[in-house]
C-alpha cells in the first residue's frame, strides 16, 4: 500500500467489511447442518455436498472432460446407433484407428456415443440438480445482501479500509451531507444517511440488483437443459421426407398435414457447385390449405410448430401402371433417394407398391455422378425389378426408355418421364422457443452480474478542527484495480462538486505498469 498525506491503513487490515448490523449469510455458504436423526444427518451430508461450489466445479470439469472425449473420439452417427447391425459394422473403423485394448475399453465406456450415453445424461442431471440446490441455498443470502445493506460500519473501518480518500470542505457537516448525497446519486449510487455516534455518515451503493443476475443466469441454464430433454420427449423429426415434383405426400405423426411439391428448382455457379435449390410447396391441413411458400436451405417453412427444411434433392421418375382392363391403378412419382451398388456402378433407387401389396416395384437409374456409362441401364432409361411377396428374387426385371410402355406380370407399365424429388427435413420441436428464452436469460443474467457489480462506499463527515468538514470515503473492494481507479476518480469528482480538495488517499500500490512507474 502506498499512502499520501496522513492516512496509513492498518497492516493487519481486514479486507472484509465488518458491518455492525447483523451479518447476512455469505454467498455460496451452506446453512450449518442441523443435529437430528440418523437419516437427517445423511440428508444433510448429501445436501452439503450438492450445494458446495467445489462439487459444482468438479461437475462442470467432468462435463468438460466428457465433451472433450466426445469431440476427439469418433462418434457413431445417429442411424448407426439406432441399429445394432450397423453399429457392429461401424465399429471396424474405430477398431482400426485406436487398436486393442483401447477400442474395446472405449466401447465398454460408451465413448462412441458419449452424448447419448446414460452416464452423460446422468452427469447433466446431477449438474442441474447441483445448480438448483446451490442457487436455492444462496437465495436468502443474496436477498439479504440486496435488501439489508450493511449501512453502519465501525469507526475503525475508516482508517483501515484498503481504499480511502479524504477531502476537506469548507461547509459544515450538516449542510454537506445532503450535497454529497446528491452528487453520489447523480453518479448512480443510492445513499442512506446514518450517524456514527455524533458524527454524520453516508452509506452508498450501486448495482445492488445486479446480484439477482445470478438467478437469471443459472435459471436459464436449467431451462436449456430441461427443454432439451422435453424436446426429445415431445418432438419428432423426419430426416428424409422425399417428395417428387408434382406429387403430394402425407407428413404423418398425427399432424393431419399433407405437403404438395409444386416445383423444384436448382441453380449452379459457373464452377459447377450448387448455388441455390428450392422447392415451391403447399401444405394442407385436413384438406385445407394451411400454408404456401418457397423452402430454401436457410429458409424453412413453418406450419404451426412443424418446420419444413430443404435438405437435399435427387432424381425421381413418374410412372403409370394399368391393369389388364386398361384402368389406371397407379400414377405417381417415385423418389430415387437411395444409392445401390451393382454391376460395378452406383445407381439411384426407390420403390413403390402395386395394388394391395401384390407387387413391390424397385426403380433404378444410373447415378448422375458416374464417369463411365452404366453397362446395363442406358442413360435416360429406368430398370424395374418387380418382387412378389415372400420371394427373394425378382419375378421380372425390365428396362424401359422414357415414354415406353411394356406389359409385365399382367400390368402395363409406362415410364412417363424423369423428374426430381425434393428431400425435406421435417421437425416438430414444440419447446425450441423455450430454449431461446433460457439462452437469453443465461446470457443477460451473466452479463448483469459481470457488468453491474455491486459497489459500496461509506463516507464519514467530521468537523474539521479549523472549521468546515473532513470527509473520509472508504471502500473495501479488494483485488479490483479498475474499481480503485473508479474510486479515485469519484473522490476527485466529489471534491470538485462540493468545492473541496483531496487531502489524502490510500490505494493499492499494484495499479498500472510498474515499468511506467519507474519501478
Amino acid at each position, binding site marked *: 500500500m502506498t499512502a499520501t498525506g496522513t492516512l496509513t491503513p492498518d497492516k493487519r487490515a481486514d479486507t472484509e467489511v465488518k458491518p455492525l448490523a447483523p451479518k447476512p449469510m455469505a454467498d*455460496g455458504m451452506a446453512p450449518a447442518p442441523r443435529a437430528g436423526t440418523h437419516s437427517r444427518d445423511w440428508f444433510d451430508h448429501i445436501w452439503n455436498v450438492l450445494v458446495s*461450489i*467445489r462439487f*459444482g*466445479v468438479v461437475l*462442470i*470439469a467432468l*462435463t*468438460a472432460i466428457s*465433451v*472433450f472425449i*466426445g*469431440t476427439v473420439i469418433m*462418434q457413431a452417427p445417429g442411424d448407426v446407433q439406432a441399429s445394432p447391425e450397423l453399429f457392429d459394422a461401424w465399429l471396424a473403423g474405430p477398431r482400426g484407428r485406436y487398436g486393442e485394448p483401447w477400442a474395446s475399453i472405449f466401447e465398454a465406456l460408451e465413448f462412441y456415443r458419449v*452424448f447419448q450415453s446414460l452416464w452423460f445424461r446422468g452427469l447433466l442431471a446431477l449438474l442441474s440438480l447441483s445448480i438448483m440446490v446451490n442457487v436455492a441455498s444462496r437465495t436468502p443470502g443474496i436477498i439479504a445482501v440486496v435488501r439489508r445493506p450493511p449501512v453502519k460500519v465501525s469507526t475503525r473501518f475508516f482508517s483501515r479500509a484498503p481504499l480511502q480518500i479524504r477531502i476537506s470542505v469548507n461547509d459544515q457537516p450538516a449542510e454537506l451531507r445532503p450535497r454529497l448525497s446528491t452528487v453520489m446519486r447523480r453518479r448512480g449510487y443510492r445513499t442512506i444517511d446514518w450517524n456514527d455516534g455524533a458524527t454524520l455518515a453516508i452509506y452508498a451503493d450501486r448495482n445492488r440488483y445486479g446480484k439477482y443476475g445470478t438467478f437469471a443466469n443459472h435459471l436459464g441454464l436449467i431451462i436449456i437443459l430441461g427443454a*432439451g430433454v422435453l424436446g426429445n420427449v415431445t418432438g419428432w*423429426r423426419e430426416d428424409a421426407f422425399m417428395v417428387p415434383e408434382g406429387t403430394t405426400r402425407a407428413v404423418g405423426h398425427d399432424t393431419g398435414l399433407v405437403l404438395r411439391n409444386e416445383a423444384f428448382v436448382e441453380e449452379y455457379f459457373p*464452377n459447377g*457447385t*450448387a*448455388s*441455390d*435449390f428450392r422447392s415451391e410447396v403447399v401444405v394442407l391441413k385436413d384438406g385445407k390449405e394451411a400454408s404456401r411458400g418457397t423452402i*430454401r*436451405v*436457410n*429458409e*424453412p417453412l413453418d406450419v404451426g410448430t412443424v*418446420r419444413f*427444411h430443404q*435438405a437435399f434433392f435427387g432424381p425421381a421418375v413418374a410412372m403409370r401402371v394399368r391393369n389388364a382392363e386398361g384402368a389406371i391403378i397407379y400414377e405417381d412419382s417415385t423418389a430415387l433417394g437411395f444409392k445401390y451398388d451393382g454391376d460395378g456402378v452406383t445407381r439411384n433407387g426407390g420403390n413403390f407398391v402395386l395394388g394391395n401389396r401384390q407387387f413391390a416395384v424397385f426403380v433404378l437409374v444410373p447415378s448422375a455422378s458416374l464417369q463411365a456409362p452404366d453397362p446395363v441401364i442406358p442413360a435416360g432409361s429406368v430398370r424395374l425389378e418387380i418382387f412378389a411377396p415372400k420371394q427373394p428374387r425378382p419375378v421380372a426385371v425390365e428396362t424401359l426408355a422414357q415414354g415406353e410402355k411394356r406389359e409385365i406380370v399382367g400390368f402395363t407399365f409406362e415410364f412417363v418421364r424423369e423428374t426430381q424429388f425434393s428431400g425435406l*427435413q*421435417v*421437425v416438430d*420441436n414444440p419447446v*425450441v422457443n423455450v*430454449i*431461446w428464452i433460457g*439462452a437469453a436469460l443465461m*446470457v443477460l443474467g*451473466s*452479463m448483469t452480474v*459481470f*457488468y453491474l457489480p455491486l459497489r459500496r462506499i461509506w463516507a464519514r463527515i467530521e468537523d474539521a478542527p479549523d472549521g468546515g468538514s473532513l470527509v473520509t470515503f472508504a471502500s473495501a473492494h479488494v*483485488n*479490483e*484495480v*479498475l474499481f480503485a*481507479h473508479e474510486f479515485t476518480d469519484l473522490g476527485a469528482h466529489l471534491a470538485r462538486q462540493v468545492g473541496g480538495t483531496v487531502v489524502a488517499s490510500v490505494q*493499492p*500500490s*499494484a*495499479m*498500472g*505498469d*510498474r*515499468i*511506467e512507474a*519507474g*519501478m
Partner: protein
Amino acid sequence: MAKASYYTFTASFITLGIALLAYLWYTIGQRRGAGRYGTFFTVNGALLLTTSLGLRWVASGHAPYSNQFEFSLSFAWGTIASYLYLEHRFRLRSLGFIAVTIAFGLLAYASTLPSRIDPLISALQNNAMLTTHVAMAIISYGTFACGFAAGVLYLVNRNGTVSFLPAPEVLDEIGHKAVMIGFPAQALLLILGSLWANVAWGAYWSWDPKETAALFTWLIYGVYLHARAQRHWRGVRAASLLIVGFGAVMFTFFGNYFLGGLHTYSGF
C-alpha cells in the same frame, strides 16, 4: 479491391512486427520509452487490418468468415482489439508482447493460406445471424488470447518478484476481466450458432465436433469462473486454467484439420 485488401494485410503484418519488437524492448528490455511506440504501431496495425478486412468484406459481399484465411485475420483483429482495450483500461503495456505475438503468429499463418475469395456455398450465404455469430467468435477468442497472456505473466511473476512485470493481483484481475467479456460472448457464439443451425439444418444442436469443441472451451472457462470464486483458487490454478482454456480455443480453431462434421466446409 481484393488486391488492396491483401496489401493492407501485408502492411498490417509488418506494422505489428514492429509493434512486437517495441513491446519486447519495453517489457523484456525494460525500456520505458519503447512502450509508446508499441502502442502506436499496434493501433496502426489494427487500423490497417480493419481496412484489409473491410475491403475484403466489400469485395466478397459477405463478412470475412468464409475460409481459414479470413477467419485468421479476424481472430488476429479480435486479439489486438481486446488487447488495446485492456491496455487502455488497466493502463499497462506489459501484456503487449504476448498478445501481439499471438496476433502476429495468426497473420503469419494466414500468409501461408490461399487468400482467394470463394463463392459461398448456399448454407453460408449472407446472413446477419452468421455475421454476428462470427463476430462473437472474434470477441471471445480475442479476449481469451489476452487472458492467456495474463495467465502466462501471472505464472512468471506469481511471487511478485519480477520487478518489471505487473503485480500478480493485477494480472489475476486482467485475466478475470478478459473472461468476463469472453465468456458471455462465447455463450452468444454457441447460441447464435444453434439459432442458425435450427434454421439451416432443422436441429439447434447436433453434437457436431466443431460445436462440441466450442462447448468444451466454454466449459473450461466455466470451471475457471467457479473455481476462482473460491479464494484459494485465485492465482496459480486460475492462471493455469486461462492457459488450458486458450489451448482449447486453439484446438477449436485448428480443429478443421482433424475434426470432421458439418463445419468442415468453413475451413477448406
